[in-house]
């Protein structure tokens, strides 16, 4: 009997630690490989300024949209911000910001200090909408085309290399 309990305990511990290990590598595998090429599901995002709703149809108007998930409390978001500012100068792409679990005043201060790259800004105050996008840690960004197909997904802060990558994609088509 004791042996069974011991084995069960060890098995459980290995299982949990194994899950932790899988989760560590998860975001990379999951986000870039399995989502790319998929279509975006039904989207309903609430605008940052008023209660108007941003839906799939709004995406169809732009040839490319980068959906960027950010928050003022997220330090890496500060690091990627210059890249977003630069990208906002491009004509072929619109940037949709999703402000994640944030307080409005802080979010605005953030944009005031570092600049506002967003063509549209929406909010996800309790973080539920972002889960539907498969977002687990922020910052994350999803590049989609006007058919709502996910072209690329970026986990963590956008680097200069990512920026060039996006520019290549949007200017080649």
């Amino acid at each position: 009997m004791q042996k069974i309990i011991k084995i069960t305990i060890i098995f459980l511990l290995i299982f949990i630690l194994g899950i932790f290990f899988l989760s560590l590598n998860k975001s990379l595998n999951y986000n870039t490989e399995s989502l790319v090429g998929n279509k975006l599901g039904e989207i309903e995002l609430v605008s940052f300024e008023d209660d108007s709703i941003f839906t799939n149809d709004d995406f169809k108007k732009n040839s490319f949209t980068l959906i960027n998930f950010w928050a003022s409390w997220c330090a890496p978001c500060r690091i990627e911000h210059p890249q977003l500012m630069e990208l906002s100068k491009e004509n072929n792409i619109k940037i949709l910001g999703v402000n994640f679990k944030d307080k409005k005043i802080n979010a605005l201060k953030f944009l005031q200090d570092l600049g506002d790259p967003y063509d549209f800004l929406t909010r996800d105050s309790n973080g539920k909408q972002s889960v539907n996008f498969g977002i687990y840690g922020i910052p994350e960004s999803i590049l989609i085309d006007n058919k709502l197909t996910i072209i690329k997904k970026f986990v963590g802060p956008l680097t200069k290399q990512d920026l060039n990558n996006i520019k290549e994609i949007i200017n080649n088509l």
Partner: protein
Amino acid sequence: MLSNTGNFLLILSILFTSFIIYQSFACLKKTNDVIFKSIYKISLLQSTTILICFFTLVGAFMVSDFSLINVYQNSHTLKPIFYKISGTWGNHEGSLLLWVIILTIFSFLFLITNKNHPKNYRINTLIIQNILILGFLFFILFNSNPFSSISPIPKEGLGLNPILQDPALAIHPPLLYVGFVGSSIYFSAAMASVITNYSGKFFAQSIKSWVIISWSFQTLGILVGSIWAYYELGWGGFWFWDPVENASLLPWFAMTALLHSLLVLEKRNILYFWSIILCLLTFTLSVTGTFLVRSGILNSVHTFANDPSRGIYILSFLSLMIFASVYILFTKYKPTNDQINSNSKETFILINNWFMMFYLITVLLGTLYPIITDAISNNKISVGPPFYNSVIIPVVIIFLFFMAIGPKVRWIKNEFLNFKDLLKIIVGAIAVNFIITYFFKSYSLISNLIIISSVFLIISTISDAFKKPKINFARIISHFSFGFLIFFIGLNHNFSIEKDFNLKLGETKKIDNFNFELKDLKLQQYDNYKAVIGKIQISDLSTNKKRTLNPEIRIYDNPQTLTYEASIKTNFFRDYYLTMSNIDRSEYYNIKFQEKPLMIWIWISVVMLSFGGFLSFIRNAKNN
């Protein structure tokens, strides 16, 4: 310059730590019962070095030395000095240094305060604690170094997250760290106890103070975080069952169980292995929590930056800790045949432990389940308040009854329970509940039971204070405030009011028992925004009291955006919470109003709860 000093001090600490471990092994080989003088000296040096190392970093933040990446990324010259200092631990690297300080200081204090315990037990504790310290020092030096330099030196820093610039959040990490990093010392002591067969009463005495003090700080730390989330994040309410909040609650449950099982171990010399498991579990859960929030698996304010190597390091460390403790426990475990009478204090304390384990498992499952389903099936789900509320709340009712009766029961074997007294108390509790429902408002059956059971605990605890010849004030205050906590949560939940309506300037609207009047709108110009400040008078028709709240609509120049700032008024009876927003092409304003009764008492109850812990610490120190 500071970068070199910091790195030098880190390396010096590693040398001291290794030397302590080396000397301790040498000391173990000697047959006499004396610990080398040198071990005391190096331990003192080690603590001093780590402290100087930490203050070097604090200094770098104070003078805004941007040659350090860490200071550059988390500070700014224009920041108030208070937030420059708190910025030291407002980031991953700096907070790890705080970890090591607590590990080291607790190690030193444990060494010098437990002189009446055998040498082998103390030395083994020291060795294990120092292995932990060494692990974290290596982690800091090679993976998360706060003293890494940057070249060329930037002129200005990126600034601390605005959301972290808050007094509550400045003290939240140190408080919480004393709690859950402090639990490392009884993790080490428990391992040492099993290795050296130093069990029973004396072992319990050697760790009791440490458990109490870490529990008290953990309680305060959780409270401060919770208050901050209430007013800053606007999460609504005092507890959101967010995975990050849960991560701090898990070790708290284990600590609370341990706190009680130690009483049995000290008094009756039973439940030894169970107490050991709880010691190991507490610190393991603390490290697990750190892993979950720091690796980026759980997303929160605590996720500073996603760096996979960081997660791997903590996970390896955690696995090593878990398997070492499981191995030692399995090889040394001896089944005991503890005789416990079912009508005795021991039984009631065991019941407390079962409840704590039930809460722990529930919260653990709720926290891990989404991670497991995501890892296995890519299925993203979120476990929210409905799960916790439906599983935990009904059980709390029974728990409160046991909590009230337990302290009345005697050790070993109770003669009889005074049912007459209990009956009086329960009638009293039902009467209080009846008065509330009769005069104010009726609520659901489960809420009735929550109120009755919490009042039962409150009255019963107060009555204990008058009966026993020897009063344990620490216990009375803790149990009493826990009763109050649940009582106020129950009332707050049932009596919260939320209203949503439109109002124009000069208009008065009557809703239920309130009159709302938009008396004035003022336009004010500030540095970077202008604000429309409303003056809304709320008159309570039942008491004729008038209150004025001033919500704001802010218009920022750059970028041009509107924000709505809530106005919160707190008093001893209720919090009023009001926001105002404009409606396009209309002279009306949308008003959202909330009344949250007795909010402040929830916070006060938790402060009292931890105060009970501090009292118990003093009492225990006096007794020994």
